[in-house]
């Protein structure tokens, strides 16, 4: 006869087994069509490029060397690969500036939304959600039409006589920045709003009672309390901005490449799959560093909500 304890243990084991069976399809699909292939990218980054794309199964660390360095074809000396360094630097710079720009615009917006009455809050949330779920390509295309030489920005500037010839915004880094800030803005607003909604305004009131200025209340009370949302929003904007493909390829016009366009080039015309793979892993490493910083920060600034 089994004791009650044994019966309970068996039931628990059965429960865990059933839970594995239930989650198996999701895990298998993700393993097969998302996570697993990433390992292949890692392997490919250590192989030799094939003549017509793909790879030769021969170990080589060339791809990794050429992420940042290039070998002189005459004397075999290594020097900094200027083109790659420029592109990596541009990607990081644009991703950081996009994050800051969306924060500067998104924080007051989230604050505005969170301080509305309960009923209208839903409406504002809905209004921010619509662009969020509208196709990113369509939104990028919308920006393209606004900032191109014949677009309304230039038309207005010309009509007002501020400029005598259209300002070339399209196909510059500024165009990519405007486009990315535009498409990723809701990603910044939503998590800050989520934090802000829980904000206890009695603390703000206490601050005023103690003669704090508006700015001081903002800096010393509101900002620290919604910091988790700010960090989450920054991560949500930074990661896709760093790996952005659509926005730079539409608004940068192929000249102002970012990392993803460089990666695409290696898999297309460049026919250097190992280099493309090494660059992909480089993007992943930057993302992981950002995520780790996020996890550490979120751990520090959690559970302080009144």
């Amino acid at each position, binding site marked *: 006869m089994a004791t009650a304890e044994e019966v309970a243990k068996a039931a628990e084991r059965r*429960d*865990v087994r059933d*839970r*594995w069976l*239930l*989650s198996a*399809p*999701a*895990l298998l*699909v993700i*393993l*097969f*069509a*998302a996570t697993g*292939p990433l390992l292949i*990218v890692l392997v*490919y980054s250590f192989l030799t490029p094939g003549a017509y794309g*793909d790879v030769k199964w021969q170990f080589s660390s060339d791809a990794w060397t050429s992420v940042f360095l290039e070998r002189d074809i005459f004397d075999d000396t290594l020097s900094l690969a200027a083109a790659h360094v420029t592109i990596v630097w541009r990607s990081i710079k644009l991703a950081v500036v996009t994050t800051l720009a969306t924060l500067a*615009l*998104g924080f*007051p*917006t989230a*604050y*505005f939304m969170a*301080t509305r009455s309960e009923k209208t809050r839903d409406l504002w949330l*809905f209004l921010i*959600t619509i*662009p969020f*779920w*509208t*196709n*990113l*390509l*369509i*939104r990028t*295309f*919308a920006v*393209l*039409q*606004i900032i191109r030489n014949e677009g*309304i920005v230039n038309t207005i500037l010309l009509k007002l006589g501020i400029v005598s010839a259209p300002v070339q915004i399209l196909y510059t880094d500024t165009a990519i920045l405007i486009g990315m800030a*535009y498409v990723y*803005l809701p990603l910044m607003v939503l998590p800050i709003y989520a934090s802000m909604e829980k904000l206890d*305004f009695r603390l703000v009131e206490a601050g*005023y009672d103690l003669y704090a200025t*508006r700015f001081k209340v903002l800096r010393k009370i509101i900002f620290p309390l919604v910091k988790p949302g700010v960090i989450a929003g920054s991560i949500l904007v930074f*990661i896709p901005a760093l*790996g952005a*493909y*659509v926005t730079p*390829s*539409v608004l940068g016009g192929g000249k102002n490449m970012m990392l993803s366009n460089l*990666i*695409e080039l290696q898999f297309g015309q460049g026919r250097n799959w190992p280099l*493309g*793979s090494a660059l*992909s892993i480089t*993007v*992943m490493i930057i*993302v992981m560093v950002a995520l780790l910083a996020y996890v550490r920060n979120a751990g520090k600034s959690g559970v302080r909500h009144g």
Partner: protein
Amino acid sequence: MASNFSIKHQPGFTAIAATCFIVLYLPIFVLVIYAFNAASSTSEWGGFSLKWFQSAYQNTQVIDATLRSFQIGSIAAVLSTIFATMAALATTRTASYPGLTFKYAAINQPLMVPEIVTGVALLIFFSRIKIFTGYSGIGYLVAAHTAFCIPFAYLPIRARLENMDLTLERAAADLYATPWKTFRRITLPLLWPGILAGLMLAFVISLDDVVITEFVKSGGQDTLPTYMLGQIRRGITPEINAISTAFLLLSVAIVTLFFFVSRKRD
């Protein structure tokens, strides 16, 4: 202090918020207006016309790409929602067990990796499989879409489950309902709004994808977004505005529906 002093007010914030909302909607608004432009140039206004919608409708490539988008989107949405529902049932309302953290990490993994990296990874992996099996249909696109839709479908379903307590299910079990009957008669009806929200989210996510599709598709397998990307690179025509407008309307309809379904609390 002044009588109109509001503790919630911060100087300039309302103005910035207003700017944000205007900026978010203005480009979309302009895009929609120019879809109804009779002129064939996108820089001048030639009167109101529906001709670009008509021309998009008669463009077999557009229709083809739209149908393919819907086909992939619906299969991927249904599959990912079923899998996500099962996974959510397996990972909520339970004490921690070995592998639970691993499951969370695995299910959310597609969200952590930039799309370009997943796209490249699938390009390499699927091109290998293509050589081995000779199969080059849309199965690869369906598999890829299902994978990255799972975390999105999982989110609302899990949220719904976590807010449901086990009382009713326990009561059903006490009344000798079989586990399957309990699931079908109690759990599923209560979970339904979450599942519906997950399904819609997954469908929109699949419909929106450009990057992964661009890398995974074989020749002649354009979806609506990849077709549009190709056209925009070639130069802009009002037809793209018309397609975008139609697409936009569809997204707005789904989001509106999603908003009401996921807000429904009982």
